[in-house]
């Protein structure tokens, strides 16, 4: 494919702007030496360029997307329609409160609904992504301990199965990270946890179901161990899609949480963002919340700033249009639809797992929640076919591969999360694809290293990209 700069030709342009209807003004300021080399292109060519790029992208609309821990569920079209309403897109963030009652209502209703689903008392919608929500939650924990003069709490405990953002967020919040090994069931090892907690424990970060897709039955004991040591419990909402309406983080002993509206609440991922990572907390942490929260009084909404707010996580009030989409989803599915989504997410995962476990060894032999992890360690050992090889072979079968090599505690991991919005036929088709890939691998393991064969480009040289980085187009010629 040509780069847009290679399509560019001097003098081509769109006719966008009328002549200036006020006198020109010569600014007394240093100017740039040369114009930026932006593309010069006609609208037709521009349209075709991006249409070609779109053809070389894999959207949810293109097919099954069972990316574990990413919750690639259907993105409802009514959400997009709502987020495109002028009333939401055309308002300035610094208009008077009386002029933006609709926006404040969106924030308030989304906050209240998400608090009820998670068992939290208050929430900020300011964080722009999951990791941003994690960082926010850890800052709340930090502010809480500091406000009590408890300066000795310097450590955050994170299971070795955790998503990389957990330890990275803890480090950004100034904490030392203590990694605690999981037990053979992939759950928290209580003895090992007890061994690392102490008066330096600021908190624990955990997701439940955990990153191997298993519900940790000892959750109340885990959160209790942390609380008894004076620490707080942080819930990573990455896997909330498994338990909505059945279990609430707040009832499992968690004090602070983040959600991923772009996973659990059906907003699109945009090829990497924008997401939205609301951070909810129990009442005792609410005085530290960042940004503005919304209160309602006799039908009038207004902003309020928490008394000991940690400040702001970003400008304004969060990725507002993402919140509009999530509220639209919440209004649509409602109180019955929320648990129905979760139980069907769990069903779809267990159905696929049951149809694959005779040939793909599961990392943990138990009922899974919304996702399951297979280990291809045996296949790698026996016939030198890796998780990567299988993933790449699935590309040729028109299926987006599962998440590879995560969590780190499972060797040759493939993590499958079908979500509730896939029908049985899609799952059956994917099951066939996984099974025939297995047959192919056994019949001709060598060939698997060459996969994919049918994609627009073949396997790419990542080492070369990192060693001699070319990170922008070179205009030299």
């Amino acid at each position, binding site marked *: 494919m040509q780069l847009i700069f290679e399509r560019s030709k001097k003098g081509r342009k769109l006719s966008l702007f009328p002549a200036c209807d006020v006198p020109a003004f010569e600014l007394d300021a240093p100017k740039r030496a040369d114009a930026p080399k932006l593309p010069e292109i006609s609208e037709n060519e*521009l349209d075709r360029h991006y249409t070609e790029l779109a053809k070389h992208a894999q959207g949810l609309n293109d097919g099954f997307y069972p990316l574990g821990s990413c919750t690639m569920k259907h993105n409802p079209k009514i959400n997009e329609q709502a987020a495109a309403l002028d009333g939401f897109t055309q308002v300035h963030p610094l208009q008077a409160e009386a002029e933006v009652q609709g926006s404040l209502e969106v924030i308030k209703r989304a906050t209240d609904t998400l608090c009820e689903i998670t068992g939290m008392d208050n929430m900020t919608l300011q964080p722009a992504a999951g990791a941003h929500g994690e960082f926010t939650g850890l800052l709340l924990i930090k502010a809480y301990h500091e406000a009590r003069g408890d300066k000795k709490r310097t450590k955050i405990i994170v299971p070795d199965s955790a998503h990389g953002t957990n330890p990275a967020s803890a480090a950004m919040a100034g904490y030392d990270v203590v990694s605690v090994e999981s037990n053979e069931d992939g759950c928290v090892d209580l003895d090992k946890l007890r061994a690392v907690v102490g008066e330096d424990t600021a908190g624990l970060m955990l997701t439940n179901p955990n990153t191997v897709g298993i519900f940790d039955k000892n959750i109340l004991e885990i959160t209790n161990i942390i609380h008894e040591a004076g620490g707080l419990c942080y819930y990573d909402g990455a896997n909330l899609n498994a338990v909505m309406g059945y279990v609430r983080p707040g009832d499992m002993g968690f004090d602070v949480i983040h959600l991923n509206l772009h996973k659990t609440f059906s907003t699109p991922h945009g090829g990497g963002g924008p997401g939205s990572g609301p951070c909810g907390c129990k009442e005792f942490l609410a005085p530290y919340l960042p940004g503005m929260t919304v209160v309602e009084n006799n039908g009038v909404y207004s902003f309020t700033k928490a008394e000991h707010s940690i400040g702001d996580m970003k400008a304004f009030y969060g990725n507002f249009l993402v919140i509009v989409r999530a509220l639209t989803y919440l209004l649509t599915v409602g109180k019955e639809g929320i648990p129905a989504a979760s139980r069907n997410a769990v069903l779809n995962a267990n159905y696929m797992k049951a149809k694959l476990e005779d040939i793909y060894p599961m990392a943990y032999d138990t009922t899974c929640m919304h996702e399951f992890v297979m280990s291809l360690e045996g296949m790698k050992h026996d016939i030198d076919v890796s998780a990567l090889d299988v993933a790449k072979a699935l590309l040729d079968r028109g299926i987006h591969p599962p998440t590879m090599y995560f969590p780190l505690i499972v060797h040759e991991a493939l993590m499958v999360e079908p979500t509730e919005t896939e029908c049985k036929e899609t799952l059956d088709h994917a099951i066939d694809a996984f099974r025939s890939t297995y047959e192919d691998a056994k019949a001709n393991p060598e060939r698997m290293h060459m996969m994919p064969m049918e994609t627009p480009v073949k396997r790419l040289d990542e080492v070369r990209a990192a060693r001699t980085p070319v990170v922008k187009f070179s205009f030299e010629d």
Partner: protein
Amino acid sequence: MGSYIPNTEAEQLQMLKEAGFESFEDMLSVIPAEVKLGRELNIPEGKSELEVSREMKKIAAKNKIYDTVFRGAGAYKHYVPAIVNTIANKEEFLTAYTPYQAEISQGILQSIFEYQTMICELTGMDVANASVYDGATAAAEACAMCQERKRHTVYVSETVNPYTLSVIKTYCFGSNVDVKVVPACKCCGRTNTEKLAEMLDSESACFVVQHPNYYGILEDIETIEKTVHEAGAKLVMSCNPVTLGTLKTPAEYGADVAVGDGQPFGLGLAFGGPYLGYMATTSKMMRKIPGRIVGETVDTQGERGFVLTLQAREQHIRREKASSNICSNQALCALTASVYLAAVGPDGLKEVADQCVAKAHYLASKLTEAGLSLKYDKPFFNEFVTECKCADAVIDACAKEGILAGLKLSDTEILWCATELNTACEIEKVAAIVKEVC
């Protein structure tokens, strides 16, 4: 109730059976009873699409939309070419995940590579990342980039957008880094460069300046650059990217990190988000920049292709030692900005920048004729501060006429903004309103 579950109840029962369960209860028995909610959620019942559509429209209608906007302060109303949303709404871009599987994601990866190139062209810098959340977080991430073994303290000009300062402070509360605010010169509205020279020391990591600053004024970057680098600190420059269509670039000034908010490039006001944090730096600091970066490479057939690269900086590899925790970014907003920049081209961007300048200065001259006075006398781009007896009266009178006036900074100060969208007629009208009030 609305639902996006395709399988019928009969199918669900059949699947439960095939998966080895008698019922949903049986399947979910892995959740201990003592943590189960055991009641319905206390939220409304689900609704049909038509009902939801009506309800969302009703909520949206409670917001007041202004056709004429003279307010900026970090969120700018510009013309969005028709093609921009057409392309940004393509489902393949909208619904794709992060391009981890490069072989089927060349379109997304190439679009990011093109975006990175455009940001490098605008700023003059060597390398740009695939975006962060917004301009304020970009500035905060830049401060983290500039941390060195013996240099931790972050200095920020008082003249940056208040949100930028607040976010930097919040991030630095996390990393236990001191933030010191360098005061503005009260009469000229620019950073007090003498104070800056006094304040910087051998523990200074960086200085963050916004150009043009929160009050629209162009800073004395040449002096600032010398002062900052003589002290051995790094210079972080935050720019409204529209200005880079004409003004001297961060690279030309010698900045170490260029950041800002790409919202003016095709993203609507949208009540504050999603916007686009852009970040670019020198090749020397390439391995310190946070977030995703796309690099060019070849496939096994020698064909050009693109991949996520330099991932050794990132959280999924480095965990607690990563340069940042960022994972999701603002990819679709970066794509939107790229389409905008391709649509306007170099001439169009300069036209937008020139018209912003011309209209802001016409507005300033008309408002001063009408009785307001300019607070500062230094050159400004497309925002400026006026003084009058009663800011509220001006803003209210404009609102009655369907005009969103500038932002009230104090009882007597208003921060105005003009863009290419504001016509001479609108400007004359607002001046007439002001004349009546003042």
